[in-house]
């Protein structure tokens, strides 16, 4: 009865509007949004005024103008006569190249180091520990400078290049090596490679289903290698097996012909991989340590080999712990690749930075950098979240 009376009393009693949480909440939100809006308006109006006064153009029309600057490392055709948009696209491709290679190599090296730290061999585990501590406690930028300067100081000039079999030349201009002469068949071989990879994926799925249904194992690895290597090889033979090769030769002060891995690229990639692998090693180690010891003992008890224990029992479980922190490391590699600008590798930020200096249109260019990195970051996050969901524990 008393509870009833209390309830009806509070229901009938009118709450004054300044004590109503809903109204308060909305007032508070409107005030905050109003303040943020006022700040934004203040900044935008100042900016417009400053731009008008300094006669800086706005808008993105400059993207179609001629860039006029050289880019040292291009994956697609580019010359100073190309547009700013193309210069930025070349930079973006370089960023992606470094990021993809960096992620792949850092994952491999980091996993080896992480497993190495858990090794029963005292010397191996200590060395891995020292590696991790040394590399993650010093700024990445310092590693980049050190590696870059070591390459340019320690290796000889092009005339005294280290010559291996007259085809590989290592100097402070990078590593020159021969490549097949461009031939239309190469594009078809590329298509063949993709077909081979897709075919391998579907074959692996079929093989797994068959093994689950009948228990018969299938040599997926050998068949996969056959498909991935064989299809492009067949296309090459069918295309008349062109065997022309472009050899690097010393002409004047540098090499011509062949292709080159530039010291800037090498320094950036090596620095990123060495630095990130220290963090990856810690993630892998803690992922494996978090597993119950009974898991490996039980797996051994049902007669699995050491490799099978790792591959079928431990790693799939450790992956659930490893994937989320690994995602943020992959994002870091992508973002850290922007340090390229410090050692002169032409990545996206470097291209855009030159564009800022030439056009003076800072706002548009900074917006482009941010939009591109946000897109790349969100794509990596989306992919890793999808992967994480796929490997997550399926409970009832």
């Amino acid at each position, binding site marked *: 009865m008393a509870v009833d009376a209390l309830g009806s009393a509070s229901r009938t009693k009118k709450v004054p509007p300044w004590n109503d949480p809903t109204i308060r909440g909305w007032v508070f939100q409107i005030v905050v949004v109003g303040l943020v809006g006022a700040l934004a308006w203040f900044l935008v109006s100042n900016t417009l005024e400053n*731009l008008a006064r300094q006669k800086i153009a706005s808008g993105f029309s400059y993207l179609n103008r001629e860039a006029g600057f050289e880019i040292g490392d291009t994956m697609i055709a580019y010359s100073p006569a190309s547009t700013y948009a193309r210069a930025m696209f070349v930079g973006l491709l370089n960023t992606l190249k470094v990021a993809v290679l960096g992620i792949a190599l850092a994952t491999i090296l980091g996993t080896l180091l992480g497993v190495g730290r858990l090794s029963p061999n005292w010397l191996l585990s200590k060395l891995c520990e020292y590696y991790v501590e040394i590399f993650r406690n010093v*700024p990445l930028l310092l590693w980049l400078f050190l590696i870059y300067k070591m390459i340019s100081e320690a290796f000889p000039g092009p005339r005294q290049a280290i010559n291996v079999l007259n085809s590989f030349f290592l100097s402070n201009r990078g590593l020159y090596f021969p490549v097949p002469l461009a031939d239309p068949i190469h594009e078809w071989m590329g298509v063949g490679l993709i077909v081979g990879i897709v075919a391998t994926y579907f074959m692996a799925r079929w093989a797994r289903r068959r093994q689950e249904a009948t228990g018969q194992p299938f040599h997926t690895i050998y068949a996969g290698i056959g498909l991935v290597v064989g299809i492009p090889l067949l296309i090459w033979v069918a295309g008349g097996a062109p065997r022309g090769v472009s050899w690097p030769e010393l002409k004047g002060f540098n090499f011509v012909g062949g292709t080159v891995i530039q010291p800037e690229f090498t320094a950036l990639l090596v620095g990123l991989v060495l630095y990130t692998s220290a963090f990856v090693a810690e993630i892998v180690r803690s992922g494996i340590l978090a597993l119950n010891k009974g898991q490996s003992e039980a797996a051994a008890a049902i007669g699995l080999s050491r490799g099978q224990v790792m591959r079928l029992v431990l790693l799939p479980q450790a992956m659930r712990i490893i994937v989320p922190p690994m995602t943020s490391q992959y994002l870091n590699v992508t973002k850290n690749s922007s340090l390229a600008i410090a050692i002169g590798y032409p990545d996206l930020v470097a291209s855009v930075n030159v564009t*800022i200096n030439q056009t003076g249109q800072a706002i548009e260019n900074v917006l482009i*950098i941010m939009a591109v990195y946000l897109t790349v970051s*969100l794509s990596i996050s989306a992919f890793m979240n999808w992967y994480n969901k796929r490997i997550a524990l399926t409970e009832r």
Partner: protein
Amino acid sequence: MTDVLPTGERRQLAPPVTERGALGWIRKNLFSSWANGITTVVLLVAVVWFLQGFLNWAVFTATFTAPNGQACRGHGACWALIHEKYRYIFFGSFPYQQHWRPLLAILTMLAMLISSADRRMWNSRLIWIWTIGSFVTFLLMFGVLSFPISLFLFVALAVGGLGLILRGVIADPVELNAYRALLAIGAIGLVLRVLGVMPAWSLTIAPFDYVETGLWGGLPVTMILATYGLVFAFPYGVLLALGRRSKLPLIKGLCVGFIELIRGVPLISLLIMASVMLPLFLPQGTTIDKFLRALVAVILFAGAYIAEIIRGGLQSLPKGQFEAADAMALNYPQKTILVILPQALRVVIPPLINTFIGFFKDTSLVLIIGIFDFLNTANQALVDPNWAGFPAEVYIFAAFVYFLFCFSMSRYSKYLEVELNKGTRR
């Protein structure tokens, strides 16, 4: 001698010599199997080869004093370069005769950081340590400090307001009146100042020569950017984290959007933005110091990361804490400051220290916009044509200094993780 005693018990035998002592340890840890043995031998050869080469270069054939770089040629490491340039590397272009000032500033900051690491200091003493320490640091660096009256009025307003909100129910009347007085003085003073009735008085302390931020360089710059970047980013990171957990949709949306935007882009893009766009954002005639621009970028960047860490701490609190605070009729600021944050922040101290290590390293990026931090002064030391050609020595030296800072902080964070969990561990 028999192994069986007269009583029928077996005599306790010592384990064989290959199982105990140094020999046993080597057998167990280095040669437990064939594969292990081979690994050990290969690694041992590699380590000896590397150490021999490195020590030969760094110690045995090194030059420790030399008049110039030429004298170093043909020998091992040229540590004479460090001997020659260490003052520039540590203090940058700060006036040479006054180098004791940045040195004392570094020591003051170290003393602040180390005393804050002691758990016995985790109370109101910390506020005093940081107020006085910061004052001393910036007085030493600038040489002249000038505090406008509006700063004092603002502090009075803030202290009075916070005091009334937080201690309104529990403080005695004398204390409450003090808060009311502070609030009133602050508010009235600021209004008068804005209206222009009150002149722009300021308190100037000028014991040394003024040194502008453009001349600052080396370790103090790195330490100031990392420390104060994080100190200023902290309250705003807390607000972002609270906003992200808020039930109010507009606030939540603003905070989530901001955090994800900042976390999705590299620090370099923010630094470039701060260096080229910040001057455009401000009204005509206002110039903003380059050092301050870098600090703004670092603060914006750090706030988003701190917010995510603190959100982790907020999420780890059981729901009962929020409900209990509500049941005691605490309002939102009281609930947050008195109940929620003290518990949430305690959980996130170790990850916050790890973030600090990250920022200590990441401040090196400011060299891209032309700030002379520790890495940049090390870089500049290489430019001197008299000493050209010894990058490894300088970078190894710089790496060693960074390592000392980061490694000791990461050890401290590990120790603290164990220490803070003592109460909950069984």
